[in-house]
């Protein structure tokens, strides 16, 4: 089972090699039950090299699976989560008690149909829901990693996911699907492991993190590091947590996930639980109250150092720079079928960024579909019930499945 909270760095339920949830039983049936968090122990024999020059191993990755792998092992879809998501794409989240983060899109009979496809959703390297990350123990010192944890990149996360896919005995994924940072992973998969996936669905994402996005992330990181409870990242040893800084980081980020129209429609200038202004600094406005709530619930499930590392990984992401400055080179010779999707009111990852990805793939005569979904709900639209979006994903996967020879069940 999953660790009970994201913040307990090495609690009693932290799954070790002897943990019954540990999945090293071979490849007979990695899918016995839907939605159960398993921990795969990877890079055991030899540490995995990281982009920063250091290496890491063994690596533990927490993951869930849904549906059934077919006999040909050809119907597996890897779902990549966003910055603050985790492996609980479906089903009740063990910490928050809320539904999975992509219940709108994923599940039996839904656009990504678990009756037809076998889904794998892993917590990323550097995450805090059971995967190796800064809240874990450095085997070399026996201490909590904290900021001694190596800086990881999107490509490192994808390397770890590829080890997980090896571990599950799957040679080639039918598709890799993800939004936002998950979409970055999708693009990285297609660029660095094109032979290991048939189709790719990068959603509300970009081939590089823009200066504006890095700027917002820096505000969040500075909020965490300015919190006296952060203790240079060694807060666990001090018995404290930088909850205030992390909450502010979340509040800032949350604004970027919405659109002005979405905020206006949801809150306007309405006051919260009062008839008149207080002429003070209480949360007079509903929007303030909402952000404070977002911040305070986030700290219950997320580790502050993980937030630092993951935002940094996104900042460093630049697929063109990794290919001589020409994005198209990242996709040269690729036979992957792409479906690039953006949302019209997303100002964090605007449509122009997705269009640039689609054009780069077209420039090497690649196989790409691209569409912009009309919505006023901003970046977060990819997590919300957007019927047109769901139909596009469903139609694309269905068409790709036909080309991949995956039968209907």
């Amino acid at each position, binding site marked *: 089972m999953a660790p009970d909270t994201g913040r307990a760095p090495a609690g009693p339920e932290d799954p070790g090699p002897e943990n019954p949830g540990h999945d090293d039983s071979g490849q007979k049936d990695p899918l016995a039950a839907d939605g159960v968090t398993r921990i795969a122990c990877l890079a055991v024999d030899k540490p995995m090299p990281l982009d920063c020059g250091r290496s890491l191993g063994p690596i533990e990755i927490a993951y869930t699976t849904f549906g059934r792998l077919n006999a040909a092992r050809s119907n597996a879809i890897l779902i990549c989560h966003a910055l603050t998501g985790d492996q609980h794409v479906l089903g009740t989240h063990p910490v928050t008690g809320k539904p999975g983060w992509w219940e709108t899109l994923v599940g039996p009979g839904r656009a990504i149909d678990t009756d037809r496809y076998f889904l794998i959703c892993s917590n990323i390297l550097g995450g805090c829901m059971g995967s190796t990350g800064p809240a874990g123990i450095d085997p070399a010192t026996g201490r909590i990693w904290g900021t001694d944890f190596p800086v990881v990149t999107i490509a490192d996360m994808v390397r770890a996911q590829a080890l997980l896919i090896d571990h599950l005995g799957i040679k080639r994924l039918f598709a890799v699907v993800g939004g936002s940072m998950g979409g970055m992973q999708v693009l990285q998969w297609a660029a660095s492991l094109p032979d290991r996936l048939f189709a790719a669905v990068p959603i509300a994402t970009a081939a590089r993190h823009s200066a504006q996005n890095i700027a917002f992330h820096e505000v969040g990181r500075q909020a965490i590091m300015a919190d006296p409870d952060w203790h240079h990242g060694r807060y666990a040893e001090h018995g404290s947590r930088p909850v205030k800084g992390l909450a502010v980081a979340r509040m800032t980020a949350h604004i970027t996930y919405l659109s002005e129209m979405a905020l206006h429609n949801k809150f306007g200038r309405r006051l919260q639980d009062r008839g008149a202004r207080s002429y003070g600094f209480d949360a007079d406005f509903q929007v303030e109250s909402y952000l404070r709530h977002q911040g305070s619930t986030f700290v219950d499930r997320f580790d502050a150092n993980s937030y630092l590392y993951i935002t940094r990984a996104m900042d460093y992401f630049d697929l063109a720079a990794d290919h001589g400055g020409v994005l198209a080179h990242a996709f040269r010779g690729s036979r992957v079928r792409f479906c690039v999707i953006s949302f019209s009111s997303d100002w964090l990852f605007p449509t122009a960024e997705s269009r640039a990805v689609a054009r780069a793939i077209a420039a*090497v005569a690649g196989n*790409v*579909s691209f569409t912009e979904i009309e919505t006023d709900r901003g970046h977060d639209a990819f997590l919300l019930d957007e019927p047109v979006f769901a*139909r*596009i994903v469903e*139609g694309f996967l*269905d*068409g790709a499945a036909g080309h991949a020879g995956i039968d209907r069940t």
Partner: protein
Amino acid sequence: MGPGVIRDAHGYPALRPDLDLIAGMVEPQVRVLDIGCGDGVLLHYLDREKGCDGRGIEISQQGVQESVARGLSVIQGDADHDLDFFPDDAFDVVVLSQTLQATRRPDMVIRNLVRIGRRAIVSFPNFGHWRCRAHLLIRGRMPRTRGLPYAWYDTPNIHLCTITDFVRSCAHAGVRIETSLALDSRGRVVRRNAPDGYANLIGEIGMFVLTRDRV
């Protein structure tokens, strides 16, 4: 492949006659780009019947959605903005069916067509058709016909031309006309391989196969 068939052997609706004509000009197994592909019906036909490797560009979200749902690869975009990014000779055939008149720079589009495709199949409503001429001559108003049903102020057709205009533009751009057809509004051929004044008078639709001029 006559236009009289309602459904084909697979139970799919028969192609619109002009698309059927285009489909007949495309060889099996080739790479095709359909610009303004709508719901992808031509690409789907070429994929299914001729094993072509098809791509599309379509401006409407709904068209892209329907195309993608058919398993086709379609980019939401338009001929003015999204052709520059395709490499030279990326396709064997590029199709621009009833779209040229809605582009901002048809001349640039034509150049791009023969750059990225070995051959280009272009069709457009012929403004030189006698009914258009009569409409303007007698009524003194912008023609509204079956092929050009919009009022002058809300039409997407911003660059209407005649068959003669088109032929001259091709010569100017160094584009060779391999085949020329004048069609009636139902897509039936009324004049073949003579892009002359007569075709310009009786054709409601001009359809051309273009290639780069041999130098």
